[in-house]
């Protein structure tokens, strides 16, 4: 369960201030597939970064599974991200020199897992998303959709409690986007909590619940 209370994020530029999140409140249940939509600048990505502990809000609280993330020290926060959260970025964010397998293995390696377990898990995850035959391919040898699927595999390889996806289909064509969404839906079906930012209403509609951000607060929150 993610509980967000009175979340405020302000960007300062010289003397001017831009209030992006203005006392936002939100709850996401375990196993839920939530999409966040809104026009450009509405704060949807900013909200995702705060929830994913990639950024610090100016005020407010974020509890993830009863852990008050405000109270985590820098190293604890890093450890918490490694063990509990997964990220899928719009531009895949794969390390170009590493193969698909190695990219997926990074979080497992950093968790200190055994070599044999890393091999087993990374291979299984890549197999699950249909890339079992491309373990040794470099990102440059994969299509955009395949790269995004590797990115998803990396995000879920360590069984995160929450999977965050920041416009995961923005750089993909329709057909590939559909296949990526299918992967998300399959993960959701297996009980994965997913929070996805998108600007495409049809993909938002495929999720379990959609919140619309406007003016730094949730304008609407509906079940799909």
């Amino acid at each position, binding site marked *: 369960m993610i509980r967000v209370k009175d979340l405020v994020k302000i960007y300062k530029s010289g003397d001017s201030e831009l209030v992006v999140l203005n006392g936002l409140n939100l709850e996401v249940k375990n196993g839920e597939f939530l999409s966040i939509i809104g026009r450009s600048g509405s704060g949807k990505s900013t909200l995702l*970064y705060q929830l*994913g502990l*990639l*950024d610090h809000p100016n005020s407010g609280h974020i509890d993830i599974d009863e852990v008050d993330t405000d109270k985590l020290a820098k*190293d604890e926060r*890093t*450890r*918490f*991200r*490694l*063990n509990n*959260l997964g*990220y899928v*970025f719009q531009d895949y*964010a794969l*390390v*170009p020199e590493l193969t698909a397998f190695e990219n997926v293995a*990074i*979080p497992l390696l*950093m968790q200190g897992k055994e070599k044999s377990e890393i091999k087993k898990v990374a291979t299984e995850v890549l197999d699950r998303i249909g890339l079992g035959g491309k373990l040794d391919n470099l990102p440059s040898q994969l299509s955009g959709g395949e790269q995004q699927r590797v990115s998803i595999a*990396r995000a879920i390889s360590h069984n995160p409690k929450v999977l965050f996806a920041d416009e995961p289909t923005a750089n993909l064509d329709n057909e590939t986007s559909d296949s990526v969404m299918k992967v998300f839906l399959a993960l959701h079906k297996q009980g994965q909590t997913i929070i996805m930012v998108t600007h495409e209403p049809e993909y938002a509609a495929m999720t379990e619940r959609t919140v619309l951000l406007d003016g730094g607060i949730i304008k609407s929150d509906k079940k799909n």
Partner: protein
Amino acid sequence: MTLTFLNLVIVSGILVGLIEGAITGIKERYLGDIFISSLLNKTYIEQTPMIVGFAKSLPEVKAITTRYLKAGTIEANYKEEIATKKPTDLDKSVGTQMVGIDPNDENSVTKISNLVIEGKFLEENDYDKVVLGALLLKKYLDFESAAFPTLSNVEVGSKVRINVNGNTREVIVKGIIKSKVDEIDRRVFFVDKQLRGLINRFDYNANEIVLRLQPNADPLVVKKFLLDNGSGQFARVQTQEDAEPKFIKDMKQTFAILGNAISSIGLVVAVITIFIVIFINAITRRKFIGILKGIGIKSSAIEIAYIIQSLFYAVLGTVIGTAIILLILVPYFARYPINFPFSDGILVVTTSGIITRIVVLLIATLIAGYIPARIVVKQNTLDAILGR
């Protein structure tokens, strides 16, 4: 990195080797392993036969030579000059040391015959024949100095006039030697039998006794044997190191400091290079570093990765550099020394010197790798991911 390591080792190695070459030259061609000379208040070594006899009985001693010395003058072209000499002209004779040696004994200790650059070396029965050190001749000392007067127009076969102990003799130049050791190269060599006659030294008391020891013999042990035997009452007994001129020791230290100073400039360049390489590498991967941090990888792990990368460069460089030095350069310079004017320069490389430089380079590289990685890694994770 290999070049930096080579620079670190070779610059000081050659500068020290230049002096080391001079020291080796002095040892091999002049002082031997043990140098016995007359006491400061005596004109020669009393009881020379006793000392030589005792030294010969020591199993550590491989070869012995005795040298008879007397100051004298040498003159060339004197016949031509008689006609042209004006009352105001200075005497053109050159003051030098006349040295009497047994050619075979001297050769067994210093291999002096190998130093002949013109003509031939002395033989046991040579009479009225001399070998000249090259620095007595103008053609081998191409500067004019009142402190180092030289003879002109002297070749092998020329007649020169020797004046020693009040005796004047006309002798033939049989050969010219060049050793790069001034003490040798400014001497006139006679067969000892003739010189002893000229200087009335019929008691076999010499001025210098030089011992060459067996390869693994300890000079200090031999010196102690000689002193215990009472040789110290009649002569100064010194190891080659004792007898080495102090300025040589000072120069060796000076050149080592100089070499290290020059090498340290190379080290600074290497540090800057590593810094730039790692910094550019880290900056161009800023986004991926941000992503890795975002995933939950600790900053320290990323920093360590960069330190390992820079250490990899350093280790690879030092391994290749050490191999080049030990397998190629040291044997090469040992075989083909650098022909410096006053020594045959070798490359001096010690194990401790190499280890010290490897450690210095690794520490410098570690710092040069860590700082840029730290600069990039400590940037805001989200800014790095979003390229802000």
